[in-house]
């Protein structure tokens, strides 16, 4: 069977604005959108530009807006879509070329929430023990692969690019609620900013976009409650 693959193209060296280009690509129902993109690049136009690395939903490189929603091209099968597959770069980020976006701002926000364990040196060489219940509290937010599908699906982020965004809050949550961590208060201060947690409008686009099934809105609201109670 064939599908019509519509790709948003933009070459900064020649184009003023992005434009759409269509290809008729032969596919199998079990092909993933990433396979279709790769085939189009191999067979029709070698200049089609997109990111991918693992091709198995782990590295988070190939989050794209596919048929109007942010998803990983490597986790979405052709049979889950119609005969037309429309692929655009993640909304709200600067476009470098075709489907490649500039992720610097996104990663800057991630770094701003101290996404690492802050704990005093353990005495001797002992482990930092944690009960299963303590681990459970932040289990969901350990799953993030930083693909940016959530942050770039958020209308609050589109309207206010300074908003720290769902992905950064998820990664702050992962450490704020870790019983071994000692910097929760600092992170809560950072997120109490006007561009921090309060910009969430419970739109749930992030939850629907997340390829890892994280309940992001729940994590954001838990962090908001902690910010309020600090």
């Amino acid at each position, binding site marked *: 069977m064939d599908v019509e693959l519509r790709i948003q193209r933009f070459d900064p*060296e020649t184009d003023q604005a992005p434009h759409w280009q269509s290809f008729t690509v032969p596919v199998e129902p079990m092909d993933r959108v990433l396979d279709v993109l790769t085939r189009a690049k191999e067979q029709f136009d070698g200049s089609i530009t997109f990111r991918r690395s693992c091709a198995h939903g782990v590295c988070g490189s190939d989050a794209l807006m596919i048929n109007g929603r942010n998803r990983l091209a490597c986790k979405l099968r052709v049979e889950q879509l119609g005969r037309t597959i429309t692929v655009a770069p993640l909304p709200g980020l600067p476009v470098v070329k075709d489907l490649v976006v500039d992720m610097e701002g996104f990663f800057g926000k991630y770094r701003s929430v101290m996404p690492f364990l802050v704990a005093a040196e353990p005495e001797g060489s002992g482990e930092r023990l944690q009960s299963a219940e303590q681990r459970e509290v932040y289990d969901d937010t350990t799953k993030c692969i930083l693909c940016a599908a959530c942050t770039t699906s958020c209308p609050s982020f*589109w309207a206010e690019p300074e908003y720290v965004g769902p992905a950064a809050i998820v990664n702050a949550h992962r450490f704020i609620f870790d019983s071994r961590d000692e910097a929760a208060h600092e992170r809560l201060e950072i997120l109490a900013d006007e561009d921090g947690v309060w910009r969430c409008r419970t739109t749930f686009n992030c939850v629907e976009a997340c390829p890892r099934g994280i309940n992001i809105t729940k994590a954001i609201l838990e962090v908001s409650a902690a910010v309020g109670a600090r």
Partner: protein
Amino acid sequence: MARSTAPLPPRRTLKDYLAYRGGEGMVAWAFHRISGVAVWAFVLLHVLDIYFVGGNPQAYNELLKIYASPAGRMMETLLGAALFYHALNGMRIVVMDFWPALTAYHRTLWRIVWVLFFAIGIPGAYIILKPIWEVVR
């Protein structure tokens, strides 16, 4: 010509917003915003008419006649709908704020909003609109 390799800044037009196919949560949010603007317009109107009570009773009476006309009653019904939706969906958000675990059921909460909206809104609209038929008769 000098070659540019600068990334293209994102567009933020309404068209770009509408290009995203969000689910119930995004629709709930969009309605919340739109109804919020309607409620704000209503507050302005209300400030004006209450000002007329003391400032210009004649104008106040005229304005109330407009409110009581068929078109005025239609407008009141729409304003009531906006206000009521905004209140109900606001409660949905507050409930999730207090119990984040309920976010897992945000779609169910959204459906409850609509059930209450129509269950209470239709009789309410009937009461507001009923005099129109009496005038027509």
